[in-house]
């Protein structure tokens, strides 16, 4: 989900376009902050995930939870193992309790394995989307004001509210 300026302006009750560059900066920061805090990717990003050893069997399979979560359709995961000529391929995705896992039951795979995860571009959960808009509104409201500290507990409270489905 890319930044929808009109949507944000409506949300934050900003009737003019003069803040648009600042809103863009705040949006990028909030999106990145969400990813760092929760693993939830709003816009499409490519990240690597290091898998030192085979996952333990859960839900009856060698399922590994992805550190980066996005919508399922927009997520691709490629594996590459540690042999001299790496064994590479694409992992099979499994969704359990709203989270994306990959099936690591792959023949002749030698650990450690590097996963290249492309996640995001999601149709966002409406609650998460609202939380993101609100966070951007905080950033925009406090911009350039060094007397306002960033609320570091914001995403902790939001993820507490979400319960599950967030990394």
């Amino acid at each position, binding site marked *: 989900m890319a930044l929808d300026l009109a949507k944000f302006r409506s949300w934050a*009750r*900003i*009737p*003019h376009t003069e803040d648009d560059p600042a809103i863009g900066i705040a949006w990028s920061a909030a999106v990145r902050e969400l990813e760092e805090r929760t693993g939830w990717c709003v816009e499409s990003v490519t990240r690597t995930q290091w898998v030192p050893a085979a996952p333990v069997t859960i839900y009856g399979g060698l399922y590994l939870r992805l550190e980066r979560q996005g919508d399922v359709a927009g997520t691709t995961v490629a594996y590459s193992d540690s042999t001299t000529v790496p064994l590479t391929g694409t992992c099979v995705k499994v969704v359990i309790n709203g989270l994306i896992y990959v099936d690591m039951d792959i023949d002749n795979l030698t650990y450690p394995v590097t996963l290249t995860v492309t996640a995001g571009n999601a149709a966002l959960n409406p609650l998460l989307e609202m939380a993101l808009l609100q966070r951007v509104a905080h950033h925009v*409201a406090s911009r350039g*004001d060094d007397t306002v500290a960033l609320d570091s507990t914001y995403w902790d409270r939001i993820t507490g509210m979400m319960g599950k489905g967030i990394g």
Partner: protein
Amino acid sequence: MAGHVPSGMLRLSMTAQNPVRTVDDYGQAETSWISVAQIACHIETARTNEVIGDLGVNTRSDWRIIAAFHPSVTNNSRLVYQDNGTERVFHIRACWDRDQKRRRLEIEATEETA
């Protein structure tokens, strides 16, 4: 003060209008109003006075309004508010951006009562 008004308090959506003056057939200036923006407002205080007008005693209401900043809203503008079907017009006498952050406008307005 203005910096401390969260946007959640700006609950009234008013139409900001600016004057357009044209000259009519007799050479007189005619004022019409063109809407420039919907801005979110919060009415802070109101004060009503009795004043002496042409036809005797009148009432006049002064309002203090906090609004979302809009660059086109000036001392010449007016705000129109649809209050449950009644159109109310607030003439802006003064407006300023107190913290110079282009975030809020503090407005002193006088309500027009027909």
